[in-house]
């Protein structure tokens, strides 16, 4: 069996086991033959967290949870709920694999529209402005939280206002505190609960790194040197780094913030004025320019999709980007790099500003997070039914299933990371969870969150990425000129 076939077979074996199509004995026999250690089962790490969760449990919703859904949904049977969401692993898993369990138990129909992020915002803003209540639940990217904070229910208020509809053990304290603060909290309100957490981690080709005698990059400067060495020795077939640098696209702003924060800069200063044009901001641009030279030429026309593809197709050897890509890279049927990638925390920042040194609640950190919340709309005609669905969709049990079945997305609940079913997926293959320890550590130690202000949607989707795009297209004489232009435009928009 050649290496590629072995990887495909290995992934199939593990998938069969995880999906309950293969018993433990057969799996262990196969795993041993394929050279997989006991670690693939997480046998050294497993600790039962909840009574209904162990690695032998079938990947179906908990009977207790469904019984609760059935119990409280009686009055709402026949209701139809609508949600417009971005195509993210949680939404896709709920829509294609899990929704029917909820519908059968509750008698409530759920229509989920999976759309590009821009169109989700369009639907959401239309719904808010018209107050028609077309959508009962809102998928809220963290950059919109401030804008829509008054248009959704605070889940804590919902629990307090209607204890009869509150799911037992829903436990809002289980949501990772850093995510609540970075994604769902605006002023003193929860704008829904954390729903998904794409976050920047370092993903690199272990085989190439090993071949060149490199360890995982520990500092940004070391990362640059490694990327440059790879491009110099292996280019143009393989480039050391890649990026999401499409002009005018939100992804470019995301890329920028990682370098900015990593160099001790911030988007806003404590006076709430743009600070990306200060000394640290310009140092970040100088670094980014150098790193850009190690990337494939097409990088300035790619969003995160192109960036992920460049790694998946073996054109680029590393990226500091969304951890959600990692399970896809391990899919032997979809990429050329299955089993070759390794996840690590982002390189250490050169310096890091504190919350007090920034504006609008911005939290600097090299692990840029792009999480989103799920919330019940205040315009919903069936807010109680929507609240039941929301609790089900974001409860511990459903998150485990989303993570296990939905492609190894990062859970937003602390407890899910320790679930045996999640640990059992810690192996090479599609939907792996072998990067989740890195994700968890990044959330706790490196997470960077964008500022919260109503104008942020415009700033992050237009003002900043359009001008950064101009910079990389050579339309500014210098980084200073570009940053000063961004500063001027940003301050004008913020001051109204």
């Amino acid at each position, binding site marked *: 069996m050649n290496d590629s076939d072995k990887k495909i077979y290995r992934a199939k074996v593990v998938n069969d086991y995880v999906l309950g199509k293969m018993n433990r004995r057969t799996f262990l026999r196969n795993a041993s033959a394929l050279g997989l250690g006991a670690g693939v089962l997480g046998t050294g790490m497993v600790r039962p967290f909840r009574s209904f969760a162990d690695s032998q449990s079938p990947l179906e919703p908990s009977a207790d949870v469904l019984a609760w859904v059935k119990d409280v949904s009686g009055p709402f049977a026949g209701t139809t709920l609508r949600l417009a969401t971005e195509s993210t692993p949680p939404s896709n898993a709920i829509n294609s694999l899990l929704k029917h369990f909820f519908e059968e138990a509750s008698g409530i129909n759920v229509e989920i529209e999976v759309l590009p992020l*821009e169109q989700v915002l369009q639907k959401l803003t239309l719904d808010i402005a018209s107050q028609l209540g077309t959508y009962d639940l809102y998928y809220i990217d963290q950059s919109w939280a401030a804008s829509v904070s008054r248009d959704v229910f605070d889940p804590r208020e919902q629990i307090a206002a209607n204890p009869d509809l509150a799911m037992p053990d829903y436990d809002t304290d289980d949501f990772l505190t850093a995510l609540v603060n970075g994604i769902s909290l605006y002023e003193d309100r929860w704008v829904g609960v954390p729903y998904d957490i794409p976050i920047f981690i370092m993903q690199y080709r272990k085989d190439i790194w090993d071949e060149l005698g490199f360890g995982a990059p520990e500092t940004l400067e070391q990362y640059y040197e490694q990327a440059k060495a790879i491009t110099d020795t292996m280019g143009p077939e393989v480039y050391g780094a890649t990026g999401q640098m*499409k002009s005018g696209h939100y992804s470019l702003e995301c890329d920028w913030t990682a370098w900015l924060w990593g160099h001790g800069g911030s988007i806003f200063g404590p006076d709430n004025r743009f600070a990306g044009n200060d000394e640290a901001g310009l140092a970040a641009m100088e670094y980014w320019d150098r790193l850009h030279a190690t990337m494939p030429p097409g990088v300035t026309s790619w969003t995160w999709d*192109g960036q992920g593809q460049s790694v998946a197709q073996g054109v680029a050897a590393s990226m500091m980007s969304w951890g959600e890509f990692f399970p896809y890279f391990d899919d032997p049927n979809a990429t050329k790099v299955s089993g070759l990638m390794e996840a690590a925390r982002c390189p250490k920042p050169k310096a890091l500003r504190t919350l007090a040194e920034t504006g609008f609640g911005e939290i600097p950190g090299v692990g840029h997070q792009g999480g989103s919340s799920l919330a019940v709309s205040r315009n919903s005609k069936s807010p109680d039914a929507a609240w039941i669905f929301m609790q089900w969709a974001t409860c511990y049990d459903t998150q485990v299933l989303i993570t296990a079945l939905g492609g190894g997305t990062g859970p937003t609940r602390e407890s899910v990371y320790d679930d045996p079913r999640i640990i059992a997926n810690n192996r090479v293959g599609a939907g792996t969870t072998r990067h989740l320890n890195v994700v968890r550590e990044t959330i706790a130690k490196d997470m960077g969150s964008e500022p919260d202000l109503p104008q942020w949607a415009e700033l992050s989707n237009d003002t900043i990425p359009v001008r950064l795009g101009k910079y990389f297209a050579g339309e500014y004489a210098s980084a200073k000129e570009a940053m000063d232009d961004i500063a001027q435009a940003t301050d004008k928009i913020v001051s109204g």
Partner: protein
Amino acid sequence: MKLGVLSADRPLVWMLPLVAMLVAFTIIPLIYNIWLSFHEYAPFRRRLEYVGFENWRMLFSDSRMWEALGTTMFYFTVVLLVELVLGMAIALLLDAEEFGFGFLRSILTLTLVVPPAIVGMMYLLIEDAEFGVLTYVLEIFGILDKTTPILATGSLALWGVMLADIWQWTPFMVLIFLAGLRSLPSEPYEAAMLDGASAFMTFRRITLPLLSKVIAVATLIRGIDIFRMFDYVFVMTSGGPGTATYTLSLYSWQQTFSFIKWGYGATLSLFTLVIILVIANLFIALAKVRW
């Protein structure tokens, strides 16, 4: 049989369904758009507020709008001209009863049934610096290399977008011109042949004048369409790099739906409508189009 109000001499009654649809889907939205242009949505108060002429004042002082208008006009001019010339050239070539030409004519419709957003996605891949076949071909001929990504280079991006438009819609021009060419009388051509006129002279003096109405209609339809172009830039460049491919449509969509500036978005779309009306009527007058 007595038809009463449905008799043939009462055309207004027969037109009522169409008029009702026109009122519901065109007139009322237009009036609402005009009303909206004097208001702005206040997100924190969750209501539309009267702002007078503020949106219109902002429109004329908005440098991004003027830039987008310039890009739109340039795109409009180049794409329309290329599609006209190329469409006519291909139509003249295909206007013959050669073997296989019937098949060629029938497959011309294929590009027209593909949604523009899909064509945008296709060209996004075709023009990709790393994987794109166009970049590959241009590199072979030494015209361009990977370090100059078409869609990420300010001076090239708009041309890259135009290519998608021209590929998709030139066959539309070809079909219209072909239909026109096939309906032309043969006598003037026979006379020209007897007089010894060259092919170019025949085309300039006979074909073009006889086809003028067809050309005018095709130009008008495509011109309006090109001016409103949105899909290609949305999919391929998001208006970038920088603002190099921002068209008026993309800009007004962004203001309306991304930044929740309903009033300003409405003002931009009304302004676009006015420009289209002015250009279309100027063209109708200059080209002496008679309906």
